[in-house]
């Protein structure tokens, strides 16, 4: 690992100031489970690492039906997966958080880190896409919010400006049914070959898939096809046929493009059948 300076700000303002000053030479760190691996392999060689863990008030997970769910940027995957409100009101997010890495990794890795890392197969992304989650950003010019679907721009590219930091994720509450699915080569401790979430809000459907394009994707055409309709076998067949036309996966070490297309179709068909 290349040497770097380790910075430990005590306040958000100080963190933002440091990032504004050092810009691309600096990287924020929370659970470190992504960046340490990338630094070890010299894929990431920052001059400054800004550790956020000593800043108070960023590890909270709060919920009310009016305000929805709020996940602070230091809340770990295990804290999210084990949180009673998340399990009750956002079970797909709890399942996604629980599917990340190992118990040891989940004790350190954060959900915000998972999103900011902007991997196409980020496990917690698809439920958050389905719930229209919003990222809370603090920067030199103050606070702003941005929908998650506009935040992740490409593989490891996000819509953060100089000095900006994601302080938390807000997930609006809507009564929903549905499932998170992760298809991987082994049951535990693996990257998703394909991951996806299908949610039903009354007669409206939200579908998001991961590892099938440079970013996680909402399948808008399939959602429109389903909107307001009763889930018949014919409609589910049609949705399962349309869904893979909305994604653009690649062949890689984990699976072929065709397999991923088939899995998108399968996830849509299987979850919709359970919801019918």
């Amino acid at each position, binding site marked *: *690992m*290349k*040497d*770097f*300076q*380790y910075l*430990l700000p005590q306040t958000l303002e100080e963190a933002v100031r440091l990032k504004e000053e050092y810009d691309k030479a600096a990287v924020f*760190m929370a659970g*470190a*489970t992504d960046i*340490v*691996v990338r*630094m*070890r*392999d010299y894929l990431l060689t920052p001059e400054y*690492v800004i*550790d956020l*863990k000593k800043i108070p008030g960023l590890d909270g997970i709060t919920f009310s039906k009016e305000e929805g769910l709020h996940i602070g940027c230091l809340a770990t995957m*295990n804290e999210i997966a084990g949180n009673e409100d998340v399990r009750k009101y956002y079970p797909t997010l709890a399942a996604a958080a629980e599917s990340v*890495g*190992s*118990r*040891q*990794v989940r*004790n*350190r890795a954060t959900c915000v880190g998972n999103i900011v890392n902007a991997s196409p197969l980020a496990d917690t992304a698809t439920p958050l896409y389905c719930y229209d989650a919003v990222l809370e950003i603090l920067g030199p010019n103050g606070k702003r919010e941005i929908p998650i679907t506009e935040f992740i721009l490409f593989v490891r590219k996000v819509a953060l400006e100089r000095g900006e930091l994601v302080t938390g994720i807000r997930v609006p509450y809507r009564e929903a049914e549905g499932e998170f699915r992760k298809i991987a080569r082994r*049951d*535990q*401790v693996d990257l998703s070959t394909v991951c996806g979430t299908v949610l039903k809000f009354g007669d409206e459907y939200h579908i998001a898939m991961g590892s099938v394009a440079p970013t996680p994707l909402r399948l808008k055409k399939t959602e429109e096809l389903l909107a307001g309709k009763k889930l018949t076998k014919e409609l589910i067949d049609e949705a399962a046929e349309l869904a893979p036309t909305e994604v653009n996966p690649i062949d890689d070490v984990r699976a072929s493009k065709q397999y991923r297309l088939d899995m998108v179709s399968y996830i849509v068909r299987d979850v919709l059948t359970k919801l019918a």
Partner: protein
Amino acid sequence: MKEYLVKFFVNDEPIELRVPANRTLLSVLREDLALTGTKEGCGAGECGACTVIVDGKAVNACLILAPELDGMHIETVEGLAKGSQISPLQESFIEHMALQCGFCTPGMLMSAESLLRDNPHPTRDEIKKAMSGNLCRCTGYKKIVEAIEAVAEKGVYDK
């Protein structure tokens, strides 16, 4: 190279060290403190050979940067025994021959220890899930699960 003063505890013993930023807890344990029970397998958070308990939670020592250690309470496999008396979990691993080459064993013990403290009577599925971040390349998983079940049945971890 800048160094950082860190004060932390390993198996209840206070430690004070100056460390560079680009080292990990794993390397500090093995190279500075000569606690070589904690093993390096993959160095990337995938195999669990370096599992230690930090502030009550099982984590991979290879993914923690040395300057982060300040204020941490770290438990390693060397801390399981009390003097020359090995712990009931370690006894159970021996009794069930829950090891082959032994390289993964310290990590397995620390993951199991952390699981049993949180959940003194886990089901077989809970054990398998909690231990899934620890790889054994001799693939002797069955006896490891049995050793954990046996020590749980004895009620050693009951609160």
